[in-house]
């Protein structure tokens, strides 16, 4: 190849990359805060006996699960200001868009783990004379929450990776800064490789932690 590697082009410009990483982390953490809380509420709605609550909730979940995240984000950035006449800052827009996406995926995770609580445990709760509320609070939720943790973490790290999509709509995250730097320095190999490794350096340990957690849970 007629291309000599020059990592200096990247190391001299770590400042913008770190700024971008900070934005990426903000997006990730805030979207996770939304996803973990709203996802749980949405899961309760999708398991509701009332169709007026259940059906819209399920539609919400399916819409986000069955369309590309990039379509969701582009739609959100172009259409929300037009439809609702609101103009938020790009990072806040990114947080809401990613947060809604994660809400749908986490709702599914919560729902699956609520339904995975064995029927016999509820029967045992009835046999022990626990009230419906007591059964939910003391039997279903503790098990469901515990079982959903690995999937929530996997989804959370997934949204960390998906957050790179906001670069396409001009949010100055790690991906965006990388793209800008690659173009400005004509150093795509060094820049994109370093950016990829930064993403990996954060995803990988969390992924290993999830593996460890799952192994531990499957033993007990």
């Amino acid at each position, binding site marked *: 190849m007629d291309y000599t590697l020059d990592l200096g082009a990247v190391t001299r410009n770590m400042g913008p990359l770190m700024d971008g990483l900070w934005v990426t982390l903000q997006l990730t953490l805030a979207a996770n805060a939304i996803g973990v809380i709203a996802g749980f509420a949405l899961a309760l709605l999708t398991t509701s006996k009332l169709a007026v609550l259940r059906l819209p909730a399920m539609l919400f979940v399916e819409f986000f699960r069955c369309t590309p995240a990039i379509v969701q984000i582009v739609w959100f950035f172009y259409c929300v200001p037009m439809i609702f006449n609101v103009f938020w800052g790009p990072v806040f827009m990114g947080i809401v868009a990613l947060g809604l996406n994660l809400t749908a995926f986490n709702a599914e995770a919560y729902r699956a783990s609520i339904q995975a609580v064995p029927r016999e445990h509820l029967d045992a709760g009835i046999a022990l004379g626990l009230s419906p509320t007591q059964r939910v609070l003391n039997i279903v939720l503790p098990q469901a929450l515990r079982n959903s943790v690995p999937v929530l973490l996997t989804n959370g790290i997934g949204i960390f990776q998906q957050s790179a999509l906001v670069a396409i709509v001009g949010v100055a995250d790690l991906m965006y800064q990388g793209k800008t730097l690659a173009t400005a320095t004509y150093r*795509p190999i060094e820049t994109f*490789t370093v950016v990829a490794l930064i993403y990996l350096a954060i995803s*990988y340990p969390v992924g290993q932690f999830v593996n460890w957690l799952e192994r531990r849970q499957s033993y007990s």
Partner: protein
Amino acid sequence: MGMTLDFSILLLFTDALALGLWTTLRLTLLCIVLGTTLGFVIGLLRSSGNAVVRGLLGLYVELFRGTPVLIQLFWIFFCLPLILGVEFSNFVSATIALTLYMGAITSETFRASLRSVGREQMDACVALGLPRRAQIVNVILPQAVLRAVPTLLSNAVSLFKESALVSAVGMADLMFIGQNISNNTARPVEVLTVVAAIYFVIAFPLTRAVTVVEQKLLRKFSA
């Protein structure tokens, strides 16, 4: 909201959207086939093979699972040609990128399903005196592949969705054409909603199918 929606505007662009969808489907199907094959081979090699091979393949898998698909695409589109000194068409670059991504996630699927074939099945093979080859070809692999089917299907749906990312590197798929129409007509709400609906109409039945297949297989393997 001070705007009126006019979806009829989309009728002017049905041909363009159909062309974009065709590109999306062609790319997705090709990468599903290539990526699943790659993933199967890598899953097998990672379950056996020597330590060096296992280590290198593990590195590949973690690299593609641990980074955004978008940066994988950028890397393949902009860096690979520089390194190899060869120019690829958009379609070839996209195929390479999505195949490598699909191969990485699918190899994990196969590895997990190989592990899920219980030790008791191996005991039965030994008790029947089956030669090593028959143990693998006739007992372990068919079960592993069957068990992998639901996850493979969800991987395929994921890839269909991820394929929309190629629009960001200038490939004229459904998303790219949708965005162009949206920009040219200044009607993003109608156009982007329809684009989202097209993706949904294809992906939703597939995710339902995954659930059905999963339940059927669960029943079969309850034996």
